[in-house]
């Protein structure tokens, strides 16, 4: 008998039944909710007189609209305050837990799920946010969903879904110093394209992925959606179990040992069949930077922006739109482009290890004149842990702003936005036109280390030239 992949094992264990239209009614084990995509869903429940089927499996937080300069209530922004109150009311009326700003557990939904031990192997997870794929780092199957589907999950604890195909992405070798998880996923998206993953779940494996910490794996899984894949995952291993152990919502005591049996059983079998397999040599990767208006438009930092006639016909149109928006010329170097803003944050790269890596580069240096630089920890717990280590001082001494937890400048629906044609070095995940709040603003995606390096230099630089020798010896 041939084996099964983790995706199919989890799918089969959660399949309630086949629906008349051929879709699967899939049970969802954990539902995460945030303030922006949920109020309409709760309203739909009220209109139909429905309750939440599993309020104890539903957890809410606030991240998108909340200010990160002060968490004091009422928020200065009336609309943010109204949305916050709406969520609090919905939570009260429907009996779910909210990690509100006063709870010390608030943060970006994809940072706090794992941090609180809510995210576990072998689960199905859904959230009204496309970066729910992040939770796949723990060997779960995690989908971003729309608001009507949020209603479905609230009312039925299920989703109507088409089964996905599975693509195994094998990253072999070892990453060179100065090359990070972010560079790995940017390279994957560049190779397979922003729509290459449509209809697929991505399974990441190989030596590079095995050697990664849980936080690095989260960075990779986070951006699966940028490659068009609805979800991405890594098979659970010892690192996964150790990360979860002792967290507030993790199984405790003997239940933890019993959990291990289940978690080990759901990893992909050695002989699992895949619909597609892609291999990437991780040893050859270099720090990556995007030059365009989608995350697939990326090059390694030393490369030149592609010439239009070197691209396939289908890509040329988006590429010329991108050059036009960015004000770049084909064949230009990305190195040396002067930046206006540096943003270190977002669910892709705002965890403690990201901040540590960045602080190691920042220490003793100053942000370049004229650059606005902000650091936004992904959660209050990350903020506190960073402060305990003195990372906040390293950043503020250098001239960075140090913020409270939230999505901040990742998406431009709170006060943190680009102005005019600002060029922003960003550790977030999307460089779409207008994404960071200014319709003419421009985003360069890169790793946290590259972001702070750019902040110090005032321009895009190769972070490998700034790495402390201790880190060059890292591998």
């Amino acid at each position, binding site marked *: 008998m041939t084996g099964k992949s983790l995706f199919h094992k989890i799918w089969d264990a959660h399949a309630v039944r086949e*629906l008349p*239209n051929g879709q699967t009614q899939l049970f969802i084990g954990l539902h995460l909710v945030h303030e922006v995509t949920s109020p*309409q869903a709760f*309203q739909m429940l009220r209109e139909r007189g429905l309750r939440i089927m599993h309020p104890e499996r539903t957890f809410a937080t606030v991240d998108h609209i909340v200010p990160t300069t002060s968490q004091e209530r009422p928020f200065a922004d009336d609309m943010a305050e109204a949305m916050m109150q709406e969520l609090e009311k919905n939570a009260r009326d429907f009996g779910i837990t909210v990690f509100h700003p006063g709870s010390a557990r608030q943060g970006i939904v994809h940072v706090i799920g794992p941090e609180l031990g809510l995210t576990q192997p072998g689960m199905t997870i859904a959230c009204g946010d496309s970066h729910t794929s992040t939770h796949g780092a723990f060997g779960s199957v995690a989908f971003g969903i*729309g*608001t*009507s589907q949020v209603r*479905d999950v609230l009312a039925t604890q299920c989703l109507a879904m088409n089964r996905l195909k599975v693509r195994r992405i094998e990253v072999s070798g070892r990453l060179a110093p100065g090359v990070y998880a972010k560079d790995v996923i940017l390279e994957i998206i560049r190779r397979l394209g922003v729509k290459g993953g449509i209809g697929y779940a991505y399974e990441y494996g190989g030596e590079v992925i095995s050697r990664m910490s849980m936080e690095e794996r989260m960075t990779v899984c986070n951006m699966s959606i940028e490659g068009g894949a609805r979800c991405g995952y890594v098979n659970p291993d010892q690192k996964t179990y150790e990360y979860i152990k002792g967290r507030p919502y993790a199984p405790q005591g003997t239940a933890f040992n019993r959990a291990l049996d289940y978690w080990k059983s759901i990893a992909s079998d050695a002989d699992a069949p895949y619909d597609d397999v892609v291999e990437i040599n991780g040893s050859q990767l270099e720090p990556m930077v995007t030059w365009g208006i989608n995350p697939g438009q990326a090059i390694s930092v030393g490369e030149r922006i592609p010439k239009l006639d070197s691209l396939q016909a289908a890509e040329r149109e988006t590429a010329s739109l991108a050059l036009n928006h960015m004000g770049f010329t084909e064949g230009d170097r990305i190195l040396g482009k002067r930046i206006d803003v540096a943003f270190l944050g977002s669910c892709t790269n705002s965890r403690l290890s990201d901040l540590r890596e960045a602080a190691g580069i920042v220490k003793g240096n100053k942000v370049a004149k004229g650059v606005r630089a902000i650091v936004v920890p992904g959660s209050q717990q990350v903020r506190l842990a960073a402060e305990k280590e003195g990372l906040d001082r390293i950043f503020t001494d250098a001239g960075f702003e140090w913020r409270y937890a939230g999505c901040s400048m990742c998406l431009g629906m709170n006060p943190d936005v680009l102005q005019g044609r600002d060029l922003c070095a960003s550790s977030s995940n*999307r460089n779409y036109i*207008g994404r960071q709040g200014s319709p003419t603003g421009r985003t360069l995606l890169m790793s946290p280390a590259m972001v702070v390096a750019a902040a110090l230099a005032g321009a895009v630089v190769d972070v490998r030239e700034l790495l402390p020798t201790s880190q060059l010896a890292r591998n």
Partner: protein
Amino acid sequence: MTPQQIAAVKGRGIVVRGNDVDTDRIIPARYLREITFARMGEYAFYDERFGAQGKVKTHPFNDPRFQGASILVVNENFGCGSSREHAPQALMRWGIQAIVGESFADIFSGNCGMLGVPTIYLAKPDVERLMDFIEAIPGAEIEVDLEKKVVKYGDVEIQARINESMRESLVKGTWDTTSLMLEAKDEIRKTASALPYLTNFVS
């Protein structure tokens, strides 16, 4: 709520050209600050339609010739990016009832299906011809026939592709998945009770 059966959509066409049109372009995040979808139609493609101080730009959604259109024609990977249902809500509330294109992002087309807005696939040359036709004869009627899986315009009838489960639920009027899935309460309970993590890992 019993959703209606949608066997066909007929109406005038409108064209938005370009690959990888993401949901931030369809509706910028600052318009997600409202707690209902009621006004989303006003914000469809906002930053592409209006410049600083509300200056009106050239965009099909502003073009008087395409007002009242209900069938949107697009290129590749339309609706990629954020899962915001605000995007299909904005298009639907502006008046779009069906979207024809080369390809769509997964979450986006799923969201469309939940709203009763079919996403239909045509090959690239067919999309280009349809786009040219609509731009040449703006008021002409286009028909998307979900039963026969064809798109008709002028004297042309082209075979189209549509996700079979989406087609089935629209044609049969079973696209209200909440009611549908609630019918299986016992089966839901049975599935849940067999999941180790819901039973404290005691099997």
